[in-house]
C-alpha cells in the first residue's frame, strides 16, 4: 500500500482537472459529486496507509516513494517524492479528513452560488497542494505546496471578487504571505549552501536531518529563524498576522478549511518537521515560543471586542496557532501537532457553525444582531456549543488535553519557563471568555435579529448539519488519543509521533527541575511523585482560569447584558484601542504601505521622471537646439560652401605660417 502514497495527492488533482476543465459542461450535480468524493478517496487511502504504518514496529515507520527526478543539476538532485512517517500520515489524515467533511458541507453552503464549479476547482486544488506540502520528502516540493496553498488561499479569499473588500483582502493575504515566503526561501537557500559546504548537496528531509550535526549553531539558528519567518507568514503570527482576519471575506467553509483547520497550521507542521534543526538552535526555539505566546495573548485580547462572529473566530485561530508555536517552541513538538489536530476539529467546526448561523440569518455576521438562536437552530447550537467547550479547555474534551499538554510543557520542558506558562494560561482564560461571549451573544439572551430576517430562520439542510455533527464528535473524543500519563492515559499520539519528533522514551515526564515552582514544591516536603502532582495542580489551575473566563462571559452577556457597556464606558480609551485592534493595521499602513508608497512616489518623481526622463529629454532637446542652429549654415548656395572652404584653407595656412614665424 505504501507504494501508492502518490494516490493521496493525485485524487484531488484529478478532481481539480475534472472540475476545472469540464465543470461547466458537467453541471452542478456532477461537480458536487466529484469535488467531495475525490477528497474522500484521498482520505480512504490515508486511512489504509495509516493502518499499515501502525502495523509496523515504530523504528521502521519511514518510507519514501520517489516518483521521478525533478531537478538534476550536477551533484544536486531533487525528486518529486512522498514520504510516509507518523507525522506526515497524521497530517494527511487530518487534512484529508477535515477537508472531506468541509467539502460535503460546502455542497450545501455554496449551493446557490453562481461560482459553484469554480469554488470546487479551487478547493480541490487547495487540498492537492496541501497534501503535497505535507507528504513532500524534500524542502523544495514542500515549498511548492507551501506556495500552492498560498495561491489557493488568495483565490478563495477573493472568491467573490466583485466585492472590493474581498479582492483587497485576497491581495493583502497574498502580499503579506510573500514577506514570510521570502524568509522561507532564504532559509532554504542558506540550508542548502551551508550543507553544500560540507559536500552534501541536498534538500531531502532525511538526508538534511541526518547531516544537520555538521552545521554550526550560528548557521542553524539563522536557518531556523528564517524558516520561522516563513511560518509566521503562513500561520499568521506576530508581526505578520494581519492578513488572517481580513481573509474572512472568503466563503465560510473556506475560512474553516484553509484559514482555520489546515493551511494556517502549515507553519507549525514545518517547524515540527524541522525539529532536528530547531532542537539545535535554542535561541530560535525561544523566539518561536515567545512569538507564539505573545501572539496567543495579544490576539486573544483583540477577540474581546469584535462583533463580527467570523472575526472573533479568526482572532481565536491566530491565538490558538500561537499556542501551537508555543508548544513546538518549547520542544514539545508532539503537543504542538496534537493541538494542531484537535484545533482542526473544533475550529473547523466553529467556522462551519458560524456558516450555518449565517445561512439561517440570510448572511448576517454581526453578533449584535443575533441572540436566542439556541432553540431555532438546535443542531448548529449544540455542535457549536461542544466546539466552544473544547476550545475553552473544559476537561474531557479534545481541546483540554492538547492545550494542557502545551501548557504543562511550556512550564516543565527544559526550554520552558514559568512566565511562558503564566501568559499562556491567562490567554487560555481569555479564550474561554471570548468564545463563550460569542456563544452567548449568538445563541442566548434576547433575540436582536432584524424583523425581516427573523421570519425565515431555519436549520441548515442535512448535508450541512451532518459534517457539523461528525466534527462535533471528533472535537469531543479527538483528545483521547493524547491523554497524558498523569491522568492515567497512554499519550498514544506522543508515542506515535516519537520516531519523527523524538522524546519517545519517557513521554510527558517532567524534565530536570528548572522552574522555581517545582523546586519550591519539592522543598515543601512533598517527597516523591511531585512532578505528577505538580502537573495535576497546573491542570486544575488552567481549568479554573478557563472557568473564570466562562463565568465572566456568563455574567456579562447572559446575566446582566448591561455590564459590557459600562465596562466599555469606564475604560473608554482602552476599549477603543482594543476595539480598533490596537491600530495595528493603521500602524502598518503608516509604517510600511505609506512609506513604501512615498518611496515609490519619490523614486517615480525624483528618479524616473527627473533623472532618467530628464537625461533622455535633455539630450534630445540639446540635439534639437544645436542642430537648429547648425542647419542655418546649410544655405543651399554653392558659393557659400566654397567660401567657407576657402576661409578654412586660409585659416589652416595662416596657422602654419604663424607657427613657422614664431617657433
Amino acid at each position: 500500500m505504501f507504494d501508492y502514497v502518490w494516490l493521496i495527492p493525485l485524487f484531488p488533482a484529478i478532481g481539480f482537472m475534472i472540475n476545472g476543465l469540464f465543470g461547466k459542461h458537467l453541471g452542478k450535480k456532477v461537480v458536487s459529486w466529484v469535488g467531495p468524493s475525490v477528497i474522500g478517496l484521498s482520505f480512504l487511502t490515508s486511512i489504509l496507509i495509516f493502518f499499515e504504518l501502525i502495523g509496523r514496529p515504530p523504528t521502521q515507520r519511514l518510507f519514501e516513494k520517489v516518483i521521478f527526478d525533478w531537478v538534476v543539476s550536477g551533484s544536486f538532485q531533487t525528486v518529486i517524492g512522498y514520504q510516509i512517517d507518523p507525522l506526515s500520515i497524521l497530517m494527511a489524515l487530518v487534512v484529508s479528513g477535515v477537508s472531506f467533511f468541509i467539502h460535503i458541507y460546502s455542497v450545501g453552503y455554496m449551493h446557490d452560488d453562481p461560482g459553484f464549479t469554480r469554488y470546487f476547482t479551487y478547493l480541490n486544488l487547495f487540498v492537492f497542494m496541501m497534501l503535497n506540502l505535507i507528504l513532500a520528502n524534500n524542502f523544495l516540493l514542500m515549498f511548492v505546496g507551501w506556495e500552492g496553498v498560498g495561491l489557493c488561499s488568495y483565490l478563495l479569499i477573493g472568491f467573490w471578487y466583485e466585492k472590493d473588500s474581498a479582492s483587497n483582502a485576497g491581495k493583502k493575504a497574498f502580499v503579506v504571505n510573500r514577506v514570510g515566503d521570502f524568509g522561507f526561501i532564504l532559509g532554504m537557500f542558506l540550508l542548502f549552501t551551508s550543507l553544500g559546504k560540507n559536500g552534501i548537496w541536498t534538500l531531502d528531509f532525511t538526508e538534511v536531518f541526518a547531516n544537520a550535526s555538521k552545521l554550526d549553531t550560528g548557521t542553524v539558528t539563522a536557518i531556523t529563524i528564517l524558516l520561522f519567518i516563513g511560518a509566521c507568514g503562513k500561520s499568521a503570527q506576530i508581526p505578520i498576522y494581519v492578513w488572517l482576519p481580513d481573509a474572512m471575506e472568503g466563503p465560510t467553509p473556506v475560512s474553516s478549511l484553509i484559514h482555520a483547520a489546515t493551511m494556517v497550521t502549515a507553519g507549525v507542521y514545518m517547524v515540527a518537521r524541522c525539529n532536528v534543526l530547531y532542537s539545535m538552535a535554542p535561541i530560535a526555539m525561544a523566539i518561536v515560543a515567545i512569538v507564539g505566546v505573545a501572539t496567543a495573548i495579544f490576539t486573544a485580547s483583540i477577540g474581546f471586542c469584535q462583533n463580527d462572529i467570523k472575526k472573533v473566530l479568526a482572532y481565536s485561530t491566530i491565538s490558538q496557532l500561537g499556542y501551537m508555536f508555543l508548544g513546538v517552541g518549547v520542544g514539545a513538538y508532539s503537543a504542538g501537532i496534537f493541538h494542531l489536530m484537535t484545533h482542526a476539529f473544533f475550529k473547523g467546526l466553529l467556522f462551519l457553525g458560524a456558516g450555518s448561523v449565517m445561512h439561517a440569518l440570510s448572511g448576517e455576521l454581526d453578533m449584535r444582531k443575533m441572540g436566542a438562536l439556541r432553540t431555532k437552530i438546535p443542531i448548529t447550537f449544540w455542535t457549536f456549543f461542544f466546539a466552544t467547550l473544547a476550545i475553552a479547555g473544559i476537561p474531557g474534551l479534545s481541546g483540554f488535553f492538547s492545550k494542557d499538554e502545551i501548557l504543562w510543557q511550556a512550564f516543565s520542558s527544559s526550554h520552558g519557563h514559568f512566565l511562558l506558562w503564566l501568559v499562556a494560561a491567562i490567554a487560555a482564560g481569555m479564550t474561554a471568555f471570548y468564545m463563550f461571549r460569542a456563544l452567548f451573544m449568538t445563541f442566548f439572551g434576547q433575540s436582536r435579529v432584524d424583523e425581516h430576517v427573523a421570519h425565515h430562520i431555519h436549520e441548515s439542510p442535512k448535508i450541512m448539519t451532518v459534517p457539523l455533527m461528525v466534527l462535533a464528535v471528533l472535537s469531543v473524543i479527538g483528545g483521547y488519543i493524547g491523554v497524558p500519563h498523569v491522568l492515567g492515559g497512554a499519550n498514544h499520539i506522543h508515542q506515535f509521533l516519537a520516531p519523527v519528533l523524538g522524546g519517545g522514551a519517557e513521554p510527558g515526564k517532567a524534565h530536570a527541575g528548572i522552574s522555581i515552582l517545582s523546586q519550591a514544591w519539592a522543598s515543601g516536603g512533598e517527597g516523591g511523585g511531585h512532578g505528577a502532582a505538580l502537573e495535576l495542580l497546573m491542570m486544575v489551575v488552567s481549568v479554573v482560569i478557563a472557568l473564570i473566563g466562562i463565568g465572566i462571559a456568563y455574567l456579562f452577556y447572559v446575566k446582566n447584558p448591561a455590564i459590557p457597556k459600562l465596562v466599555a464606558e469606564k475604560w473608554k480609551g482602552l476599549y477603543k484601542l482594543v476595539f480598533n485592534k490596537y491600530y495595528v493595521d493603521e500602524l502598518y499602513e503608516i509604517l510600511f504601505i505609506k512609506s513604501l508608497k512615498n518611496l515609490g512616489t519619490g523614486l517615480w518623481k525624483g528618479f524616473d521622471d527627473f533623472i532618467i526622463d530628464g537625461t533622455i529629454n535633455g539630450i534630445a532637446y540639446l540635439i534639437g537646439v544645436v542642430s537648429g542652429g547648425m542647419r542655418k549654415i546649410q544655405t543651399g548656395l554653392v558659393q557659400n560652401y566654397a567660401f567657407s572652404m576657402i576661409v578654412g584653407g586660409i585659416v589652416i595656412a595662416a596657422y602654419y605660417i604663424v607657427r613657422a614665424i614664431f617657433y
Partner: protein
Amino acid sequence: MVIPSVPPECYLVLSGMLFTIGVIGALTRRNAIVVFMCIEMMLNAVNISFITFSRFLQSLDGVLFAFFVMAVAAAEAAVGLAIFVMIYRSRDTINLDEINLLKW
C-alpha cells in the same frame, strides 16, 4: 641645360595671382559656366606652381602631379558641362543663386 633666366618667385607670384583671381571669380560670379572657368583657372594656377617647384627642385614629382591635375580637370570639364546642360534644360537657368534646393 637649365638656364634660370626668370627667377622662380615670378612664376609663383603669377600662380598666386591667377589662383586669387580664380577664387574671387568663383565666389562672386553667379553664372555657373563662369564659376566653372574660374575653377579651371585655379587648377591651372596650381599647375604652374607645381611645374615651377618641379623645375627648381629638379624633381619629376611636380610634373607628375600636373599631369594628374590636367587629366582630372579634363574629366571634370566633361562631366561638369554635361551637368550644366541638364540643369539648364530642366530649370531654364544656370544661375547659381537659383539652384539652391539642397538647403534646410
